[in-house]
């Protein structure tokens, strides 16, 4: 059944991404406000004491007197505030994300514009937008993995995914996988008035090369390698222990060990040298003749 649905509008050919701006995207303002509110409550005491040091008056009197060394805590306070803001935004929006998942559980399939799944897909995207943007903007490569895990994406240990686009829903990435620069991992696909949602699975210790696209429904088995500048078709299965190359993926190459490849290179060198010498010999023979 699913295969027939796919062939309805040539999804093999095209894959795009992009999400419409629904009114629900105003949730970013609420996330911003809640993050700021937590900052205010935590910083009230500290800023009050600094204000006392500056002017001699207080907003509130907390009892304990402030000392000069409070100024030394100011850099720590600024750096801590950034962390606090990001973690509160992630925590709050993951709560909203779970509520949305309970109202309409995410489903795979093809949905039309205006249907319930379409609406809730957009809502989930806009709740995940701001925290992941924040996590990506900070210079800490593990922060966006925490953000993804909080939205229910299965990300294994020591995974690299900070230099590309990854959908938050219906993506499974296993341990030790490495993704390279400027990649797109899509589990959704917008096609004029319709949207396709399908699960993407990436196995253990895979390597996804730079400038690649992984379309919805692809399954990468353990130790598979996707080559540079290639993309996968919908519902494609990449076998393990092989290198896959092509637009879309057509060619498979075996993975060689370093020793094997060196031996091959030496053989090629020797053959070229021997060929050259042979040619020279033949040339000299011709001249002599």
């Amino acid at each position, binding site marked *: 059944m699913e295969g027939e649905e796919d062939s309805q509008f*040539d999804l093999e050919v*095209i894959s795009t991404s992009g999400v419409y701006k629904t009114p629900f995207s105003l949730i970013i303002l609420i996330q911003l406000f809640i993050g700021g509110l937590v900052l205010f409550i935590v910083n009230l005491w500290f800023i009050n004491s600094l204000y006392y040091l500056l002017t001699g008056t207080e907003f509130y009197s907390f009892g304990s007197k402030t000392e000069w060394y409070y100024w030394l805590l100011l850099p720590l306070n600024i750096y801590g505030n950034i962390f606090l803001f990001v973690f509160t935004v992630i925590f709050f929006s993951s709560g909203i994300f779970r509520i949305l998942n309970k109202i309409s559980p995410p489903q795979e399939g093809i949905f039309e514009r205006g249907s319930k799944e379409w609406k809730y897909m957009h809502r989930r995207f806009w709740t995940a937008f*701001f925290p992941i943007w924040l996590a*990506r903007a900070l210079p800490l490569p593990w922060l966006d993995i925490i953000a993804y895990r909080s939205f229910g994406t299965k990300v294994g240990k020591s995974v690299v995914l900070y230099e590309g*686009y990854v959908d938050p829903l219906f993506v499974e990435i296993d341990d030790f996988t490495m993704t390279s620069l400027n990649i797109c991992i899509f589990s959704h696909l*917008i096609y004029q008035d319709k949207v396709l949602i399908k699960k993407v699975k990436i196995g253990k210790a895979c390597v996804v090369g730079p400038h690649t*696209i992984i379309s919805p429904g692809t399954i990468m088995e353990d130790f598979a390698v996707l080559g540079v500048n290639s993309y996968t078709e919908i519902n494609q299965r990449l076998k393990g222990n092989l290198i896959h190359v092509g*637009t879309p993926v057509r060619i498979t190459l075996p993975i060689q060990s370093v020793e094997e490849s060196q031996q091959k290179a030496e053989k090629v060198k020797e053959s070229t040298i021997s060929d050259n010498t042979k040619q020279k010999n033949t040339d000299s023979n011709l001249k002599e003749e």
Partner: protein
Amino acid sequence: MFQPASLKGDSPTPIDERIRKKFLILYIVIIILSLIPTSLFEYWYITLFWSETYFWGFFIALPFNVFLSIYLIQLSAILISVLFLKIINLIHNPKEGNFKRTIEDRDYYFWTIRNIVKKWPLYVTASNPFPWLKNRFTLRFYGVKIGKKAICDNSWISSEFVSIGKNVIIGMNSTILSFAIEQDNFILKKIIVDDNVLIGAKCVLLPGTIIKRNTKLSVHSYTNHNQVLEENSIYRGHPAKLKENN
């Protein structure tokens, strides 16, 4: 969407180093002028709220202050750069054609000056953390026609000689270039994308391409110089070739 900071999709504005040296002051002047309205706004905000009775209001309204100041910087940067562009266009009007990539060629010279003027506002809009009034909004100020309900915020679109129709979807990380540099030649030519076109992810449109109504360009393909893609059809490949015609 959730792209890393290195791929935020600001439109390409390459600048020639030989010309950049002379106009560095112009770039700095634009940055300083665009920050003046925000600094005035911050001064008003602090004088209003920083007192013993309203101090809680200062902190509660702080997130909205950040929100507003980001958009104020963006808007003032756009308006000032548009003003400078109008003055520069009075001296030399931008036009399409094939030119030489030397300092003596006036078209190439003024193209780089225009890029210097546009660089800062385009950078600010691309690094905006909020999804509203992004690249589509700024590009419209520079004369790029973009229709309603077009999705094009995740892609690199040139800021001149581009027109995009209604309901167009442009995929993630695809580039639309209205300029090209080939050795010593420099080419400027208009790109026209008509209504209801769908362009896949990571496509590249080279200068002079015309995409007619309801066509679809497959993922990861690029078009040639001056290529015309016909109506109601599907294209794919390197360069794009006709695959299906409905």
